């Protein structure tokens, strides 16, 4: 009796075949619509900083190193691949590729840097001055126009034990609002 059931089991297994993927030795592309590593097209990018302002993980930094050079730094280690940067880009300069094999032993391997040449005023040779634009534009700019990320961190260190002083500090802390 038990033999027939075993034979049945073997036949069932033979019918199903091998289902295991041979993944690391054979490629297995993701399904359509998968969002992998975002890639910037530096010829299309105009340096508006919309991606930096919309990034939930604030992983894209925009900084002006000189008058007509803007540097855009993308640190992929905390990117959640939500695709909002690609959605808001007015020039469609960002594409979400299907690259998901991003495992590294070095965080710098998944970062990218863009150096953008900003158009300057023909008369004075400087970039357009944002301080003279209207109030609404300035409020929009405040989202990404910071230079030092460390200064924005309210509590850079975590404590191992419960700390009353830290609790007091966190009670007083309010997120900057517009």
């Amino acid at each position: 009796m038990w033999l027939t059931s075993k034979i049945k089991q073997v036949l069932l297994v033979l019918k199903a075949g091998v289902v295991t993927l041979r993944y690391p030795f054979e490629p297995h592309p993701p399904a359509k619509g998968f969002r992998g590593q975002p890639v910037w097209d530096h010829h299309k990018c105009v340096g508006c900083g919309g991606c930096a302002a919309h990034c939930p993980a604030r992983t894209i930094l925009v900084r002006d190193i000189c008058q007509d050079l803007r540097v855009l730094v993308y640190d992929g280690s905390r990117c959640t691949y939500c695709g909002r940067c690609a959605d808001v880009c007015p020039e469609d300069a960002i594409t979400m590729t299907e690259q998901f094999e991003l495992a590294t032993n070095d965080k710098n391997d998944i970062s990218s840097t863009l150096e953008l040449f900003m158009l300057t005023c023909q008369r004075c040779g400087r970039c357009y001055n944002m301080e003279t634009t209207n109030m609404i534009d300035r409020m929009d700019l405040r989202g990404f126009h910071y230079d030092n990320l460390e200064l924005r961190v309210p509590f850079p260190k975590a404590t191992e034990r419960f700390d009353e002083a830290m609790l007091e500090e966190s009670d007083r802390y309010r997120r900057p609002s517009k």
Partner: protein
Amino acid sequence: MLAKLCKKAFPRSLWIYHCNSGACNGCDIEILNVLTPYYDVERFGMKLVASPRHADVMLISGAVTRPTLPLVKKAYDAIPEPKIVFGIGSCAAGGGCWFDSYHVSGGADKAVPVNYIIPGCPPRPEAIIYGVALALGLVEKKAAPVELKQVEFPVDMYLKNRAWEERNVIYQLLNE
């Protein structure tokens, strides 16, 4: 270098201890998915163990929160040498969206030394297998830093402006 060391230090099956340090459970489900017959990471000899004292590899998922920070450190100390630590998911790799929150230490590397990171939110099961295979030296690393530069203008704007000003008679008259 590290891959060669791994080959020497871990010649046989790797036993894995999975440590959830405040993850949303997405990465944990993907780790369990890797152990199913479809992906079947056990063909590399890997196996989940319940205790860190039995393990060679530690998988950390989630940004290490303040309550779990001492526990993660304790679990790391309990693993016998030599050991590898994987940070799985964007939270463990760099802190995710909460990297500067008051209750998060900002990634697994702030708590324990992390050897390999697997970004993704959550990473695909293939990505986890790829990371493990990378540590074992079965595949080559594909990620590399990208540096892009827009084409620089051939004419220096400042020089051009100065030449135009010098050529203009009105400026000379104004200076006098």
